[in-house]
């Protein structure tokens, strides 16, 4: 999966909060706004946004997904960078959408949005050129490089910022390249396989007793957190942007 080489990196940005943050994880969306503002951005939130259309895309119902994507392209009109605090929703915009529109007349509209889309960490590091994050966050974390950012600069960007934070230690774990088992509707149509994958991931990630399990994708964290919770051994999960936000608060 590769990304358009020249994406806009202006400081007035549009936030796509994602449906998971809209429904469950308002604290992650808030952290995203605060972190972007700290980085000098003015954050616009187009009110009519809904979802990136990924659920229907992954189910194979591309007409339904395209309907949602057409709505999304109208909501996010213009030339400003579109920032998404989720690897998989960002990948839906810059990779999935052009794929499902390959044979459609409005491919150029979708491609235009794709070329403006940034995953959050990728934008902070490769768009704005931030190399170090201020503040302090004394904790040991296990960082899951969300699968949808394979082949993009996101995983490394998030790690770079996290590792620059005072007091924070990123601990390695086994089978790091493995998926958390979520996979959208895969998690409900293949519940046994999905849960087994997730439990294995948890086993690896918790092997050295980290304080937090961290990722750039709330879907992975919702899955891992939900599994651990149901299994009676809850884990603390954090989106990396929540760490960036907390570090700022401890910066004073």
């Amino acid at each position, binding site marked *: *999966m590769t990304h358009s080489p020249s994406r806009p990196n202006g400081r007035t940005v549009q936030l796509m909060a994602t449906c998971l*943050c*809209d*429904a*469950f*994880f*308002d604290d992650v*969306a*808030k952290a995203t*706004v605060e972190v972007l503002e700290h980085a000098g951005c003015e954050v616009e*939130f187009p*009110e*009519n946004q*809904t*979802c990136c*259309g990924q*659920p*229907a895309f*992954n*189910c*194979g*119902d*591309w007409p*339904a*997904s395209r*309907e*949602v994507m057409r*709505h999304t392209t109208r909501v996010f009109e213009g030339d400003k960078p579109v920032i998404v605090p989720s690897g998989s929703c960002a990948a839906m915009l810059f990779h*999935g959408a052009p*794929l*499902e529109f390959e044979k459609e007349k409005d491919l150029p509209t979708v491609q235009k949005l794709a070329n403006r889309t940034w995953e959050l960490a990728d934008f902070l590091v490769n768009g704005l050129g931030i190399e170090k994050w201020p503040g302090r966050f004394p904790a040991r974390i296990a960082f899951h490089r969300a*699968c*949808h950012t*394979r*082949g993009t600069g996101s995983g490394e960007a998030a790690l770079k910022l996290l590792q620059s934070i005072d007091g924070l230690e990123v601990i390695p774990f086994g089978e790091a*390249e*493995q*998926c958390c*088992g*979520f*996979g959208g*509707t*895969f*998690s*409900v*149509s*293949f*519940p*046994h*396989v*999905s*849960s*087994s*994958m997730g439990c294995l991931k948890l086993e690896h990630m918790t092997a050295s007793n980290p304080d937090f399990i961290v990722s750039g994708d709330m879907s992975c964290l*919702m*899955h891992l957190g*939900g599994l651990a*919770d*149901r*299994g009676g051994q809850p884990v603390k999960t954090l989106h990396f942007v929540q760490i960036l936000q907390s570090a700022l608060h401890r910066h004073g």
Partner: protein
Amino acid sequence: MAEQKVELFARRLDRGVQQAVHSNSAAGTEKRYTVLGTDYSAPDDLRRLAGQIRQHAIEHLDTYLEQAEQSLKRQGAHVHYAVTAEDACRAVSDILQKAGAKKVVKSKSMISEEIHLNDHLGSVGIESVETDLGEYIIQIDGDHPSHIVKPIIHKNRRDIAKSFEREGLGDYNDDPETITRRARVFMRDKYLQADAGITGANFVSAETGRLVLVTNEGNSRFCLAAPKIHIALVGIEKVIPSDAELAVLLNLLGRSATGQQLTVYTEFINGPARTDRPSGPQEMHVIFVDNERSQILASDCREILRCIRCGACLNVCPVYRQASGHAYRSVYPGPVGAVLSPLLAGKNFKQLADLPKASSLCGACNEVCPVDIPIPDLLLKLRNRGHEEHAPSPGTPPMGAFAKLASSPMLWRFAMKSNKVMNLVPLEKLPLPYLQPWLKTRTLPEWRGGEFRSWMKDRRKK
């Protein structure tokens, strides 16, 4: 609710088998990663180059296949074509019957599995012995390979020892070295008695007509050392422009498949024995098999024809590691199989249209593929095709209502807020068929729909 077939298989899979498949696959992934990392500073660049080489080859198959045919004939080989699996089987038995051959030895070849060659040869009274150790065990057990490169990844030494005992290869002994020695002794006679050797091909060079075969055990070499007839079954997509491309492809194949720089035996076959070089088979037949490949070439999934059958995508796949190979109900398991098998099924696509769904789309398969096949994209395209053709897909929620909701901002905002009621009811009791499978092993976080939106509004006012 009906269950996905791969899910059902995985759920019922013996824990020991699952763990063996997992640890063996994970070890394969680790070895591949180590050797590529040790040898190359930019292995991904090499994978992309190999992908272009293969994509170029399949997009010029009309030219290269014809050139390969001419080169092979120039070297003295007979060239045959088979449109279907049945045609390919018949082509093999015709050659054998014409020569009065009764016994053949076979080197491991996925295409011979694909066309069910052994069953066919058995039905016309020809003895066909698989000579690769794993494939031989599969054959005597009446089983099917569960991995492209490691066919008996699902069996342990005790299973094998019992099979050997049953087949009269000595008393029960589950020492892997003893098992291997017994196979060595048994195969010797088979090689020497065989009238013909049947192999596949990893590559065919159009320019020179060289047929390339890689193995570790040396069984393909034996199939070409003792018998007098050599028959090679070759998928039409195996053709590459020239020998020079092998420098890239061979270097990636061994490393990706088994973590080796090169497999032990890399063989270049360039026609039958000659008067001054009489050691090899006197007759060489190459059968180019289509079996739906030209239809795949016409489809928007043609990239799958780049595949060089290394098995790296199986090893790395988290679903394969949970489900093992037989879950895929076809010759090619794992991510490559989830794409290739429904396509090879041709008119019966719908019967295997569930396979592309058996993936979390994590993309690890694409990341390790030596020819950079965009497997997740192909899985998605096939899911779309399955949807268009109304293939059954148990457990997949219908998306029409979601699309309406997600295209209507007012409705969406209302749903976000009103769903808060979910926090007040016991979710486990709700008759929602797509929620319950989630809740069985996972909890859901508190519903906080609309919270961020009002926070954002307040912030703007300040």
